[in-house]
């Protein structure tokens, strides 16, 4: 009997140590970035695992850089505009794809899925030309427009899935009452779709906030940079003298909001990601 208890205790111990290792692996790098960001530059080159005397000079230095604040503002504007644009365009598309049966529906869905698999670099030169022709080079509009290439297929796909799951009795009733498709969508279905909109909007926001290649290529001056580019371009005297404390402070500042969002909306994010990938 006691042998079985011992075995059970050992299994528990094994489980918890595995979970411990997993958590350490997942969280340690971010924790270490926080530790580094709270060190004065004199203490930077001694490895330490704990926060001894928090020193906020790195944060003060980052927040005093006008260009960094500007980059945060740009990133916010770009991400929010992309989310609004993508959601607006995809809600109507998702209604058509998720609720109406018509010839060509499968083809449109395949096309949307195909675009989501594009390597970004494959459209780089063509998009560059479009952006220059529209006079948008080195503006936030260039990024807002180009980011729809990866947000729009995703939001259409996920919203179509959610839209298809709504009970169809509601729509039948609306049609009986003679409501037009637009009324059906905005008055009947949209109010039920709010949770899905929050989920997809959040995922699109994160994708836009993190994008790097287009932001690096379509903007030129510090005033138009977004956060990822600003961080990638922080440099010191040479590649061996990067201001690591400053860099880590900037990294923590732009990541903390995302981490908080993820912790709050974990359940929604999971449902959105899995709806985008597998649905059975």
């Amino acid at each position, binding site marked *: 009997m006691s042998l079985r208890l011992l075995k059970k205790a050992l299994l528990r111990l094994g489980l918890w140590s595995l979970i411990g290792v*997993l958590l350490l*692996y997942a969280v340690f790098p971010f924790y270490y970035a926080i530790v580094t960001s709270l060190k004065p530059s004199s203490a930077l080159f001694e490895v330490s695992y704990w926060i001894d005397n928090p020193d906020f000079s790195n944060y003060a230095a980052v927040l005093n850089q006008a260009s960094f604040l500007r980059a945060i503002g740009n990133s916010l504007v770009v991400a929010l505009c992309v989310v609004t644009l993508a959601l607006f365009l995809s809600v109507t598309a998702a209604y058509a794809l998720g609720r109406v049966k018509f010839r060509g529906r499968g083809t449109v869905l395949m096309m949307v899925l195909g675009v989501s698999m594009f390597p970004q670099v494959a459209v780089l030169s063509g998009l560059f030309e479009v952006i220059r022709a529209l006079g948008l080079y080195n503006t936030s509009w260039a990024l807002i427009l180009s980011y729809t290439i990866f947000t729009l297929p995703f939001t259409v796909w996920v919203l179509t899935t959610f839209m298809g799951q709504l009970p169809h009795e509601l729509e039948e009733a609306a049609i009986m009452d003679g409501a037009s498709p637009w009324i059906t969508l905005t008055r009947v279905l949209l109010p039920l779709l709010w949770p899905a909109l929050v989920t997809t909007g959040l995922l699109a926001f994160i994708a836009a906030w*993190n994008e790097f290649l287009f932001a690096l290529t379509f903007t030129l001056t510090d005033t138009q940079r977004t956060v990822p580019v600003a961080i990638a371009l922080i440099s010191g005297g040479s590649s061996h003298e990067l201001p690591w404390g400053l860099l880590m402070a900037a990294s923590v500042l732009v990541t903390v909001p995302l981490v908080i969002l993820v912790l709050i909306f974990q359940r929604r994010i999971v449902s959105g990601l899995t709806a985008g990938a597998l649905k059975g």
Partner: protein
Amino acid sequence: MSALTTHAPCDELLLTRETPVQRRRVRAAWLFLTPMLLCLALVAAWPLLRTFWFSLTDATLGQTREGSFVGLSNYLFHDGSNWSGILVDPQWWNAVRNTLHFTVVSVGLEVVLGLLVALLLNIKFTGRPLVRALILIPWAIPTIVSAKIWSWMLNDQFGIINHMMLSVGLIDAPLAWTADADLSMWAVIIVDVWKTVPFVTLLMLAALQMLPSDCYEAARVDGIHPLKVFWHVTLPLLMPALLVAAIFRILDSLRVFDVIYVLTSNSSSTMSMSVYARQHLVEFQDVGYGSAASTLLFLVVAVIAMLYLYLGRRQMEVRS
């Protein structure tokens, strides 16, 4: 269980043929689709076609319009004595090799680790929701930021990874993770795996939760060893989800750019196809040549994507 199984609700209302209501709905559907399709045409289809066209010209970044048609000479050209063009550029083939190496190793590790973590988190224990939320953190961190954090941790002189390995006695001298040609690809893989395992884990967890519980109870009653159950029941049932996750990750890895650009910039030992293409496009301003590289990358990705769509469609037919 593939991404292609978004069924339209199959009720009588939607299947009724050619009633005025139905006709109006179809017209409205196309109207509703138009803005989205126009937008995708502007940012995806048209630029892609232009990239194909540029790859046949000698356009430069300063004057994309004045490029003249040069046929396939960006790809391969014989001037009587020498071959030139991408297809004989050792740097390009090096980039192809690097990308394939990166894709195979990192996707392999991600799928195996993702599955293991999902199995662990499928066990019931107190605090499981919190653990599930915490392991999402690497996924939420921007790639640029995680590359910077890791390049600090992997720093050859002051990095904590070298410090840990030295103090445990794994190595006698600090390693130059991002500068050493043999190690830098591993550094890139470490960062990518760290960032994307949560995504694979999520997909695997979702698939695990859809497994029928009755065969597990039957197996337990019969006293079959858990490993055997895993091998003969769980794994075959998870296969479709595993394949979907792997293909998603493969498509992502083939176009890898951010991690490599930040971690090792243009070093030839880690240069991927995307980095190569962008270097020619933007830094060397050679739009023709860079577009040719982009086109080749697009073709590779398109073949794999088509394979995926074909498999997904066949699976759908089998299911219905």
